[in-house]
């Protein structure tokens, strides 16, 4: 599969930060997300590395070179603060335990299947391993304490995707209008675009 390319090249919602589309509280919140990325607080170094490797497969960012949108720091930060979704499934352990067990399970599964740590697998092998967990076709004993499919979809994937698409660069690549207060939108109909909205590239790609 060819690498992802945005249909909205050159569009950056942050370019509107001093326009009427952004208010003060939004500027503060987005600035913090971009510039105040927290360091490791909760996960062990090994857990952090595993999760980094997992995120690189769930949301590959080859187009961003050495500066991918940070995902792991925000997950770690929320775990440190004990922030969750406000609920957990009856068959799941509490949030922190679920993450720790899940990362342990991925590593155990990796050793079972390939005899190597997750981070030492190539991309295809990592994907294959993630599919194993996604489908619940696991063999490591740790999964007796953590339902693998629930962990993959609800805990891991949903959270990783939520962290990535919280970043203004991710919102820009999909042509979202971005922050919109106090100025909202005037042109609402099909094919209608306000001048401050992203313009889609129509070159047949």
């Amino acid at each position, binding site marked *: 599969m060819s690498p992802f390319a945005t249909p909205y090249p050159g569009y950056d919602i942050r370019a509107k930060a001093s326009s009427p589309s952004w208010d003060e509280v939004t500027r503060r919140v987005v600035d913090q997300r971009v510039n105040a990325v927290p360091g490791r607080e909760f996960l062990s170094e090994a857990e952090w590395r595993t999760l980094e490797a997992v995120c690189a497969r769930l*949301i590959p960012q080859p187009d961003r070179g050495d500066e991918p949108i940070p995902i792991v720091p925000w997950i770690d930060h929320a775990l440190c603060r004990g922030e969750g979704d406000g609920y957990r499934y009856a068959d799941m352990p509490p949030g922190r335990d679920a993450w720790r067990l899940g990362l342990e399970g991925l590593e155990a599964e990796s050793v079972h299947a390939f005899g190597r740590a997750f981070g030492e697998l190539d991309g295809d092998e990592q994907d294959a391993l993630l599919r194993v967990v996604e489908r619940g076709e696991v063999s490591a004993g740790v999964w007796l304490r953590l339902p693998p499919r629930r962990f993959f979809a609800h805990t891991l994937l949903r959270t990783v995707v939520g962290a990535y698409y919280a970043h203004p660069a991710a919102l820009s690549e999909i042509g*979202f209008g971005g922050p919109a207060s106090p100025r909202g939108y005037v042109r609402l109909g099909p094919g209608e675009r306000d001048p401050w909205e992203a313009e*889609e590239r129509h070159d047949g790609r």
Partner: protein
Amino acid sequence: MDGEPRAAAGRAPDVFRRGGWVPMRMYDERDEVDFAIVGTGAGGGTLACRLAEAGFRVVAFEAGPFWRPLEDFASDEAEQEKLYWKDERITGGADPITLGSNNSGRGVGGGTVHFTMVAVRWRPDWFRSRSRLGYGVDWPLRYEDLEPYYRQVERALQVAGPVRYPWGPPRPRYPRRAHRLNAAAQVFARGCDALGIPWAEAPLATLSSPRGEAPPCVYRGFCAVGCSTNAKQSALTTWIPRALAAGAEIRDLAMVGRVEVGPAGRATGVLYHRAGEWRRQRARRVVVAGYSIETPRLLLASASPRFPDGLANGSGWVGRGLMVHSNHGVWGTFDDEIRQYKGPPVMAITEHWNYTDAGKDAPGGYLFGSQGPLPRAWAQTLATGRGLWGEGLRREVARYNHVAGVKMVGEVEPQEENRVELDDETDRLGLRIPRVTFAYSEADRRLIRHAERSMADVLAAAGGRELWIEADTAHLVGGCRMGSDPETSVTDSFGRTWEVPNLWICDGSLFPTSGGANPSLTIQAIACRTAARMKDLARRRALDGAP
């Protein structure tokens, strides 16, 4: 995380001004106030306003913060998760309900702070569900009992809607003109027209023209994570300012842990946690308005030797009969740019299958309408709903601007085993956390399949390609149902509990059936009716009599 309470020292936040304050009357904790209300959302916020305006001395407790939308609400999905109830809950059963962002509010105004503003009335037959339609149970009140209060709420919220609403009995025209349709709604209308199904502009509790200090909607589209301009007519911007002006006290960041009961078996006040300590407010009457999970949780947690199974739970129905709405959706891709992030999420709806029973193979009804998910939520839906990740996910999310979809608000049957209980695990305040159990019935599943076909037909007729179905739920109702029989219900039609004559309930937990429509307007109408009843009883000096 939440900081200090803001409503204190004789003043409360002015929601219409950055850093602004309005005066607030305050009551001594030893002072036996007329009403202690637990919760400030569609039920409690509305009731606090109407009771204060009737001259009662009211203190309303809210577990969450008192926001000023203009300075506190960012155009940012992740930041705005602060509007949801994030304390741990356990969700189980065959079809565990997604809680958190899906159906909870925490903060003055409750869930109305982030609701999508759809303000629809109940189909009159739903109040006689069992006797007229053959499923569910009858409500202890009729449409005619509620109609004046629907009217009252539509005026209070200055609902914007069509001149002629195609379904239900005649009603006055909506106070404000309907909003013009965004592209997602135009797609929906096109599909309905092609199939000959009537549709209408959704009656919305967001302003289509200026009102006092609130501006009209600017179609910024962040409604589901809080309105930062105050166009949205939430309890926070409507009932609460009125309540304060009429002399009610709002206590924010105040979590009620127990309704206290005296030796005579009557409620004497509430035990609540605020600013780091447990405190006690005396009250002549207590109203619980914490919605379908927290209301039964509080009653169950208020068990005592006299009420061993929980307060007002002689029937065993506290916590039972919990319902959601099935909220499945169908999504498609369109050649046109839709840009579904613009405007309120739901701008056009059809109640065709709420008012047409022929051709359905399941009891119950549903409405469905156009949608407008924000991008982060949409990406999560694609990931979990279709199992997308990797390059494929980024590619699919990047088609966001060409997507339109429809989602249902589908009726589910009340079932005794769908319920809220207390788990042994405790929260940071030492309170037992709720455990929620839910499973769809066979009839619920048939209705969902019927709706999926209807929705896919509309989307296909509108030109949608690559259709796919998302499974979801929305809202909560039931859990402390009202009824005519104390053996099978918790309260009478006004929300007065059968067993404790000065303990009332006022929120969506009262619903005996779920209907196929968004519940907020009906919750607020019930609250207005309850307030009128209380005022009437007080005038006749019968407010504290036996039920």
